[in-house]
């Protein structure tokens, strides 16, 4: 009996208070900016920050108040969100350049000597602060998974000493790229493309000692490329994706196999 009284009393107080709150919110309601509400409803709500604002609310605020008219900043939302935003705001549709993150390193445990063995805390940020031993690559993936920890979509897994990004899950928010202390991860447009999977800027002979898949700066790719898209700068090949026609001659000819051609059109195609 007592428990029923108790429940009734607490429930009754709750009921009275909730009625009061409902009345208050009805009579004291503030007309929220309608544009803001509509714009916010178009955004995915992941608060990843890829748009450069503090979150979906921040971006919606900026759009609603006219601080920006770019409706294509939401990379994870891709064309669908850009379309919805431009419809809501009555602006012209802007195509979103969808992006995926790629790891510019193929230095697995089989081919590369890892610079540090870290006991205790497994963190790239900590490992990158330690002095590298002479025989380890100071540019490659540390493989301790700071990127995997920040990834909101669990798209990154660690295998054999380096990070792998599942492009079917990657939404292109760039959190991993900003987290990586070695700057090994970069964002590229999500189409089938050829990338340089090495970040080492040392001379070929030095790189060779540390990693058998490391770029040695031989320039074969630069010579092989029919469209002049590859330039070797600081012993590292760079591909200009505007010029690259995807002929694959660089990847086929690379003596160490650090140029790879992959299909990066994942998540956004399936959506």
């Amino acid at each position: 009996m007592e428990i029923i009284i108790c429940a009734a009393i607490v429930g009754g107080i709750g009921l009275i208070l909730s009625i009061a709150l409902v009345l208050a919110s009805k009579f004291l309601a503030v007309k929220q900016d309608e544009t803001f509400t509509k714009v916010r409803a178009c955004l995915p709500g992941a608060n990843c920050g890829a748009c450069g604002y503090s979150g979906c609310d921040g971006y919606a605020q900026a759009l609603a108040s006219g601080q920006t008219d770019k409706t294509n900043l939401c990379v994870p939302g891709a064309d669908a969100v850009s379309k919805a935003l431009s419809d809501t705001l009555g602006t012209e549709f802007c195509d979103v350049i969808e992006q995926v993150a790629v790891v510019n390193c193929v230095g697995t445990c089989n081919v590369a000597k890892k610079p540090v063995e870290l006991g205790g805390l497994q963190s790239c940020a900590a490992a990158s602060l330690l002095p590298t031993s002479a025989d380890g690559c100071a540019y490659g993936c540390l493989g301790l998974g700071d990127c995997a920890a920040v990834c909101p979509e669990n798209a990154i897994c660690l295998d054999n000493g380096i990070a792998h990004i599942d492009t079917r899950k990657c939404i292109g928010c760039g959190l991993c790229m900003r987290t990586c202390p070695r700057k090994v991860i970069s964002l590229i447009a999500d189409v089938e493309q050829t990338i340089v999977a090495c970040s080492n800027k040392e001379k070929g002979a030095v790189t060779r000692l540390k990693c058998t898949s490391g770029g040695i700066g031989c320039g074969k790719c630069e010579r092989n490329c029919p469209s002049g898209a590859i330039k070797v700068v600081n012993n590292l090949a760079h591909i200009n994706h505007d010029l690259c026609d995807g002929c694959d001659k660089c990847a086929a000819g690379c003596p160490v196999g650090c140029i790879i051609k992959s299909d990066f059109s994942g998540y956004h195609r399936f959506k």
Partner: protein
Amino acid sequence: MLKLITVMMAAAVVNNCVLSQTYGICPFLGVSKKSDQALGMSVAVIFVMLMSTAVTWPIQTYVLDALNLGYMQTIVFILVIAALVQLVEIVLKKYIPALHASLGVYLPLITTNCAVLGVTVDNIKNGLGFGEAMFNALGCGLGFMLAMLMFAGVRSRIEDADPPKCFRGLPITLIAASIVALSFLGFAGLFS
């Protein structure tokens, strides 16, 4: 009347809720960067304290005690305080949107501000009458405001100071808070 003022002063300075009883440290450290924000937060807290005392005291006396449900005190009080904070938020959003925007996330945090719950529970625990309880709540709120404003002043000095690198940010703020709290020890035993 003298009794009421004594209760209020004792709550404001001697048993200052932040600096002597370490209630409400979250807003004390979080919103004390600028004195105008600190003032706004304090006014909101005073308002919530008074309102929640005005509601919880009768509930405790005429409902919970009368039905021997004293053990439900914490839950019922938190319920009431949470609802009142929602109300304050709605009112602020309507009438003082600038303050609402500047308080931001700290306003809903008054819900979990233990100073508010502490005051309402202490009122009952110390067996205060309704009038005394209201003055105690007012005094406690004023004490909160005093602490916030003093500390906002201290923090603006810290901004200009150049502490060693390892102390910058929160560490030096906590040390400053401890020194400010130490100064309130001087009031101990003044009233009551």
